[in-house]
């Protein structure tokens, strides 16, 4: 490891270094960690980063998928064609990003639009996966916005899958750990941008500080407005506190048309209820019950069998059985006699 630390990334248009640099992301940059209520405060605040996917420039070439596989050394299966350009057929624990295709005909004009969306982790400001995760530190969020899965802390419970509002994390059926896009945290750590953004032939995927990306998106939207896409918009959903992967949507008023991009994603109330009240109220109730029992045992005398009870019992038994049988049964005798 060399002395000097890698600079913070500002763009994906950069050639990765070959010298060994100290990473610029570390414990001190973690602002959220799963199941870690008393996380030590970050030592500094990094610039917020974002990946912007301009669908109006995307040609659906899958360079992002290819670059993703190569950089992350994943091994998706060679599948089959099922009547679509989508391959693999869904995100998998070996395919972190996926081009989704939808042939959309404008209800008024009947004009065809081939809507192609790069699906993958949105790196939410308020990550549902992290909220749901029970394993301390298995999911972390850095102050630059990257939400990362720490595989050797993952216990394979799949709670993050229920927690995610975008249906992104995928469980490896063999390794029993969950995977998703890391926003190439290993590249970011040496001052680079994600492999997909670097590769994207038309630069439909761009990367930089979130402020720069929003400014860039505004330019793009202005251009789209002049081309008849007057509803063009930036997708940075507030429901999850904004995301660090954003889209420029030409048909901005119909995100669902982009292969089911949720119009108003947020962490499900059920998940909120489960990780919120249930946990606190539940554990409180259990605590109270336990304490209550202890106190009761201290401050109230226990319910004891009295001499009177013993006598009553013997009398009752004598009355029913009569002296002989009683005598036979005098001492403990499991065989007894019917």
């Amino acid at each position, binding site marked *: 490891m060399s002395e000097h630390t890698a600079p913070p990334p500002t763009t994906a248009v*950069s*050639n990765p270094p*070959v010298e060994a640099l100290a*990473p610029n992301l570390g*414990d001190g940059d973690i602002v959220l960690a799963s199941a870690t209520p008393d996380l030590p405060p970050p030592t500094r605040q990094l610039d917020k980063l974002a990946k912007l996917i301009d669908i109006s420039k995307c040609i659906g070439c899958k360079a992002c998928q290819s670059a993703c596989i*190569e950089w992350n050394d994943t091994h998706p299966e060679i599948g089959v064609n099922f009547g679509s350009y989508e391959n693999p057929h869904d995100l998998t624990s070996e395919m972190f990003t996926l081009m989704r295709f939808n042939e959309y005909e404008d209800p008024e004009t009947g004009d065809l639009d081939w809507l192609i969306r790069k699906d993958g982790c949105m790196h939410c400001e308020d990550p549902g996966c992290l909220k749901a995760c029970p394993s301390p*530190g298995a999911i972390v969020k850095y102050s630059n916005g990257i939400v990362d899965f720490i595989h050797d*802390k993952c216990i394979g419970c799949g709670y993050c899958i229920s927690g995610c509002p975008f249906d992104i994390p995928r469980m490896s059926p063999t390794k029993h750990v969950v995977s998703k896009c890391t926003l190439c945290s*290993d590249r970011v750590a040496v001052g680079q941008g994600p*492999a997909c953004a670097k590769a994207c032939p038309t630069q439909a995927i761009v990367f930089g500080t979130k402020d720069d990306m929003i400014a860039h998106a505004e330019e793009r939207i202005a251009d789209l407005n002049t081309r008849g896409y007057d509803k063009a918009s930036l997708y940075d959903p507030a429901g999850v506190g904004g995301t660090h992967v954003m889209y420029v949507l030409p048909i901005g008023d119909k995100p669902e048309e982009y292969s089911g991009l949720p119009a108003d994603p947020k962490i499900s109330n059920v998940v909120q209820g489960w990780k919120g009240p249930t946990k606190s109220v539940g554990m409180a109730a259990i605590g109270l019950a336990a304490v209550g029992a202890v106190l009761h045992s201290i401050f109230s005398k226990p319910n004891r069998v009295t001499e009177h009870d013993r006598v009553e019992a013997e009398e009752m038994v004598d009355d029913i059985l009569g002296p002989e049988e009683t005598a036979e049964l005098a001492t403990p005798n499991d065989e007894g006699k019917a």
Partner: protein
Amino acid sequence: MNIDLSRRGFLKLAGAGVVATSLGSMGFGEAEAQELAQIRPYKLATLNETRNTCPYCSVACGIIMYTKGDVHQGQADLIHVEGDVDHPTNRGTLCPKGSALKDFVTSDTRLTEPKIRRPGSDSFEPISWEDALDRIARAIKDDRDENMVQFNEAGVPVNRWTTAGFLAASATTNETAWATFKVVKGMGIAGFDNQARV
């Protein structure tokens, strides 16, 4: 022991980190003491980089090849390929094919030894370079001597050899092309083309 431990744990609800540490020290594998952040180790550190050009389409994107070892001093294995940001045309970008160039170079259907399929046989068998090249040279000599058209009816020297043909690779370098051109036209082969015909 467990009871005791868990009590100690209860006393120490000071955050998983700390608890984990205490457990770790008690030899609980899963909860080994470890820093929270675990960025994947950066895989290009200390590799060699070499400028090259994508061999696929004619955009001819600039690429950087990251290798373990130096090709000029023995073995060099390709680890990663990425677009070259310095290149004016592709500015570091690569298409789905260029991004996966490493898989072409390291493909398990790369050819590694000369092979020969005998007439009627249902399989290839290995053959040494020497034998293969001698066999080819002999076949060329014999067929050329037999079928070279030296003169046409009018007695004009035409030196045309049409019973042999050569298809050249339009992914080879200009230098390879020049060597190939000299050899093939030099031998008088008329049926000489490359993919530009397709």
